């Protein structure tokens, strides 16, 4: 039991970090970022390049993937999303753009990094063992702690910094924020960059454990969508809750339902459908997002 809970917490911390980026972008710009999974993969590959190819320490690789993804996110917002949002009649048009960007990033990753599974050497050796009731490799613990630290850092940033306050105002009411003198364009760009950066950080963290390959992008996006549906789209607390809930469900499902075969995700999906029928806006979302 302790093992399942610990696995769930560890998974949940990763998931929450992915969902945070997605929900941030959604709340600021009303854009469902289909390319989020690809950004995560890109982050993993950047860390891999810095750590395994150039032989730099892991923390440098992690920072590099954060910076690269932040720049990529800012450029995507400025040159792609902004003009399309301005010109299109229906805001759903951004979905096509997001899907196009997902394909584009897939193509770039394929050309630059290839299709092989990549990983970096373990950053910490050894296994934590508590009386055989709870066994966890140290590097997983470290990654989990780093992920939780990133979440806490993100919340503090959003809560207490000037930029964070501006972004929260933007998420609440775009027009009102603009009337109060918030530079909407600038903070949209920062927000998108921040969201992409979070995806990159998770990619950088997870490349040490599970490795990374091209095919991980799409499924990661779907999982992230599920998390923000559980928690409620566009709400930061919801994304965190959704991430931890999904992580827990996956961890419990994989051990409890293993006897029935590979049906964990089927059960999770079905539960989600029923849950959404009763509470369409998720746990903490505003009605109709």
């Amino acid at each position, binding site marked *: 039991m302790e093992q399942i809970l610990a696995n769930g917490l560890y998974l949940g911390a990763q998931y929450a970090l992915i969902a945070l980026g997605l929900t941030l972008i959604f709340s600021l710009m009303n854009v469902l970022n289909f390319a989020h999974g690809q950004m995560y993969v890109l982050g993993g590959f950047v860390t891999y390049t810095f750590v395994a190819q150039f032989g730099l320490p892991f923390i440098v690789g992690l920072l590099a993937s954060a910076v690269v993804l932040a720049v990529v996110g800012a450029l995507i917002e400025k040159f792609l999303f902004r003009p399309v949002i301005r010109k299109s009649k*229906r805001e*759903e048009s951004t979905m096509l753009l997001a899907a196009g960007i997902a394909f584009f990033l897939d193509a*770039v990753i*394929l050309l630059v990094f290839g299709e092989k599974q990549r990983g970096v050497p373990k950053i910490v050796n050894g296994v934590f063992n508590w009386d055989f009731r709870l066994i966890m490799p140290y590097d997983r613990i470290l990654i989990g702690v780093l992920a939780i630290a990133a979440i806490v850092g993100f919340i503090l940033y959003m809560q207490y910094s000037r930029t964070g306050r501006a972004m929260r105002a933007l998420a609440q009411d775009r027009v009102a924020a603009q009337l109060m003198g918030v530079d909407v364009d600038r903070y949209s760009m920062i927000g998108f960059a921040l969201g992409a950066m979070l995806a990159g950080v998770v990619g950088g963290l997870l490349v040490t454990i599970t490795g990374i390959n091209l095919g991980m992008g799409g499924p990661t996006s779907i999982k992230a969508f599920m998390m923000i549906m559980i928690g409620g789209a566009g709400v930061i607390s919801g994304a965190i809750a959704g991430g931890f809930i999904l992580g827990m469900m996956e961890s419990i499902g994989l051990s409890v339902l293993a006897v029935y075969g590979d049906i964990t995700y089927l059960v999770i999906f079905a539960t989600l459908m029923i849950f959404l*029928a009763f509470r369409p806006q*998720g746990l903490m979302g505003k009605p109709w997002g």
Partner: protein
Amino acid sequence: MNTQKLLGVAGFLFAVFVLVPWGIAASGRWDFYYTLTSVALLSIGAAGVWLTFYIGRINIGQGAYALMGGYVSAVLIMKAGISFWATLPLAGLFCAVISVLIGLPILRLRGVYFAMVTLVLTEVTRLTALALSVTNGAKGITSIPLPGELSLFGLTIVPDFATMQNPKLAFYLLAATLMVLSYAALWRIVNSRLGHLCRSLQQNEELASSIGVNTAYLRVLAYAISSFFGGIAGAVFVAISQSIYPSSFVVTDSVNFMLYCFLGGLGYVFGPMLGTLLLYFGWDLLSIAKQYQLLIYSSAMIALMLAVPNGVLSLLDRKGGRK
């Protein structure tokens, strides 16, 4: 105006049923038949997605119904020995019934919530196909016979596909006919009372219901019609490939159906058809670019989006405005 429209329709039918087979026979590119058949079938599915857009819902779950329709047709042919022609409407109806059951709760959702839940639905369908025994799990159903003879009162309408010299052409004509029928139906729906009501849903659901429009009934109806199209498209696909696997239609296909609609233009009945042709045929032509295929394809998609964010057919709008 009316003769112009009639001429347009006649020209379109002529192009689809005469020019294309003639052009392919002349150029000898027989592989185009498969591509164009796929375009025709995918555009049927996209027509359904477009109809859900028409009531203001983003549907990324058409792949689920295509997969369901395919499995219904395959199982009925293989296990019950029913003719392909009978399974075609049955597949559509099965999907429509399922979509009513699923639609009743999830159509209460709006915006991205509905979009995400339908996306999840595609994944659920794939996992269900993997888990059930009637669908034969990951191995799928293979070596499904080609469609047999279709006859009415002893009169042969369509000969047995297995005896045909050129089943590729026959499949193309079948898919094209179905496509024409679907779009005729779609056009009729949009230009009827039902279509006007759907438009009122798209604009403002609360307002529509406040003046007595039965919104719950309408959106389920539109979703059921949409899924019917998806099921039919899936069933024909199975007949062509003679096999079906849980991975025959996945999330990417669902997303593609939505993209076809977007690219063609959401405000135009024939938008999804054009979008499917451009995207699918373009993708096929780009295969000469080998490893740069996806890069060029996605760049072109992004560029198109920047140039015409309201769909390719919105170019017509601007011309009309200038006059």
